[in-house]
């Protein structure tokens, strides 16, 4: 009971990471494809401006997931991280490179620097979700056995399902970002930019759909347990995801950007939850279940209660945050406003 609750909370955190950080990563994807220096500049500026405010804060969700996994399901955490340490190390390096390069590009003046840091930022934005996707594929296809480094350190992530997971992750991030950016551009009154990102959102949405369809064949061959789950217990969620995907495209074409945003998020979230539902109660296919791996009730209860109390503190703080954003800046600017060297 407590274990299931903890797992659900962890999964909710994972969903938040996929949606929020996913959009950040996807923005890097479009940055990569924005075109050569001068042609791509307006888009790069816009992308920079859109993700600037949230910068790296979205990694909080990843930390949340990791910490809950290790507190709530220590053996699973150890098994996954030790077997899949290659893609996870690469993803970690991608996170550092991305954050640093983004900051440096913004601060640098010369073209070659901006190019170098820009390329670093964009490449790591694509590689990080790819490697995280391969990790998901390795776990989902049952290639991570219980125990420490008990699985193959290479084939656990270099395999068809992992590859599918990686590509799907990159495409989903790209799609989320394009849909978010559409609305930002439309709100900013830039119709040309909005149209550009709408085209991209549609394209990436279609590509995700095609890959997901092809994925069915791959899973049938390569991950039979997952396939069975997806076509039985998790089927409603799979259907939700597919319907939301199609609906999102229709909404995009009709310029209902706000709704398109919500629906795209739903489609991505439904993929994650269908994976979870398909695999439940196995945490590691085939034989480590949630209750096998769960920590003692005392730990789970302490963590959940702390999170609940934390949540109670967070709600008013978040409310305060948004209330502040609603306030208008007074006309008299502060004398301390920075302009001197």
């Amino acid at each position, binding site marked *: 009971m407590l274990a299931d609750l903890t797992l659900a909370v962890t999964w909710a955190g994972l969903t938040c990471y996929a949606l929020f950080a996913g959009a950040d990563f996807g923005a890097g994807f479009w940055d990569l494809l924005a075109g050569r220096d001068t042609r791509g500049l307006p888009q790069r500026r816009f992308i920079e401006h859109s993700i*600037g*405010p*949230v*910068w*790296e*804060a979205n*990694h*909080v969700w990843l*930390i949340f997931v*990791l*910490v*809950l996994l*290790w*507190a709530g399901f*220590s053996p699973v*955490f*150890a*098994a996954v*991280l*030790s077997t899949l*340490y*290659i893609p*996870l*190390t690469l*993803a*970690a*390096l991608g996170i*550092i490179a991305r*954050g*640093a390069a983004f*900051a*440096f590009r913004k*601060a640098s*003046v010369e073209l070659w620097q901006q190019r170098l840091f820009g390329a670093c930022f964009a490449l790591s934005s694509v590689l990080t979700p790819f490697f995280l996707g391969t990790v998901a594929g390795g776990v989902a296809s049952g290639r991570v056995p219980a125990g*420490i*480094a008990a699985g193959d*350190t290479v084939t656990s992530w270099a395999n068809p399902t992992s590859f599918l997971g990686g590509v799907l992750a990159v495409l989903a991030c790209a799609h989320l970002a394009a849909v978010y950016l559409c609305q930002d551009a439309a709100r900013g009154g830039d119709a040309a930019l909005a149209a550009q990102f709408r085209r991209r959102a549609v394209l990436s949405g279609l590509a995700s759909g095609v890959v997901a369809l092809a994925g069915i064949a791959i899973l049938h061959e390569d991950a039979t347990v997952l396939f069975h789950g997806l076509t039985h217990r998790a089927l409603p969620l799979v259907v939700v995801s597919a319907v939301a995907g199609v609906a999102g495209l229709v909404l995009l074409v009709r310029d209902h950007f706000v709704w398109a945003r919500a629906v795209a998020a739903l489609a991505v979230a439904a993929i994650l939850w269908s994976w979870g539902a398909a695999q439940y109660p196995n945490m590691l296919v085939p034989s480590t279940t949630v209750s096998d791996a769960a*920590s*003692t009730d*005392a730990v789970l209860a302490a*963590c959940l209660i*702390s999170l609940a109390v934390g949540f109670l*503190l*967070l709600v008013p*703080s*978040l409310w*305060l*945050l948004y209330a*502040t*954003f609603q*306030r*208008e*800046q*007074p006309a008299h*600017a502060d*004398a*301390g*406003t*920075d302009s001197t*060297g």
Partner: protein
Amino acid sequence: MSQPASLLAAVLLPPSAAPGGVTPGDLSAARAQMGFSLAWHIVVACLGVGLPLLTLAAEWYGIRTGNPAHRLLARRWARAMGVLFAVGAVSGTILSFEMGLLWPGLMGRFGQVIGLPFALEGIAFFIEAIFLGIYLYAWDRLPPRLHLLTGVPIVVAGILSAFFVVCANAWMNQPRGYTLRGGRVVHVDPWAAMLNPASPPQSVHMVLAALVVSSFLTASVYAVALLRGRRDTYHRTGFFIPFVLGAVVTPFQLVAGDWAARFLAHFRPTKLAAIEGVFHTHSHVPLTVLGFADGDRLRYGLEIPDGLSLLVGYRPSTVIKGLDRVPREDWPTVTSVHLSFDVMVGLGCFLLLMGVWLLLAWWWGRRTGTAPLAVRGTRLFLLLAAVAGPAAVVALECGWCVTEFGRQPWVVWGVMRVRDAVNPAPGLMTGLWLVLFVYAAMTTAAVYVLRRMTRDTPVPVAPQESDVEEYPVA
């Protein structure tokens, strides 16, 4: 980071099989990688704790005096806070990966025992992020005093974060609150694990260290500017606010360090023995300053007769427990622990003296009616003050080396050895080189860009600059 010699040997010598298939090279690589990333993170984390306090102090002062220079100072520091916050989040993310990537043996068995403090830290961090967003965004939108108030939760949450993670480290030193049966943890009392006996001395000493480090580091930036002749209000205040805070906190820090050492004398005599290089249990133990371990004694050190016995028990006849009480294979490497300790204490005393100097200069200035920093010897003082910031960082790193090397060969003292915790998968050495390469490239780029930024005025001073007004983290 870890003992260079053993690392070098591990790189150069052919790997010989060790229990569990872990090569000594991979073990050293894992230790070096963990130590390196933590040593990097801890500096940023300390600034994350201390800088908000300094910023609030500057802002409060600015409101009181109405002087734009003071308010500009607060803004600048607030901006640095935003950048450091993001850097702290990224380097912290890497750490949570590494706990599992490098030490799955530890996390697989004991992850749940130290899970609670990390979960609590996550909450504290979240709250910190939100209030940082409010604080940065609301600068011109709230009445000054109310705005000041929104900064308080940042300080509190930062201190709590530090407290929680240090509790996890303290547990590794004083493991409590769980029962092992057949190699599996069967019963856990997460609160007892978190609030173990080592938590109070370690966390107090740590939080004070964070304040000391951020104060002196910030002050040293302005000391350099003052040395270059920029003696306007902006730079003087930028120097004095942090330096005074550092000077006030340092005495308490030394008292807390003494507490930490006394704690060890009671709870971890082996570690104290390694710190002081005491090989044989006996009375009338001298205090040895510096020196290298050679066989069963310290050589080339400066001995103060009966010093340690006096410090621990206030009597020369106090018996100090030596390393001979545990098997030799359980000894930490005495030289690295001992030297790290001496460097930390030495630098702590240096910082204390800097505070005393400031006090004297101030008193002298009042007597003679000259402004502080207008007297003779000021140049030397500023030079030393410029050194004090890096010195505080070195003291901090050495302190952690004492704690971490002093726990060897245990990762959880008395319960699990480091070599049983490490990831047995092959190739950790490659991972280390990769990580070192990325950190090195990043640090180089950072230094380069930061230096450029100070030269070209139109360029943003910090990556977040244009966003300060609209920085809604979360």
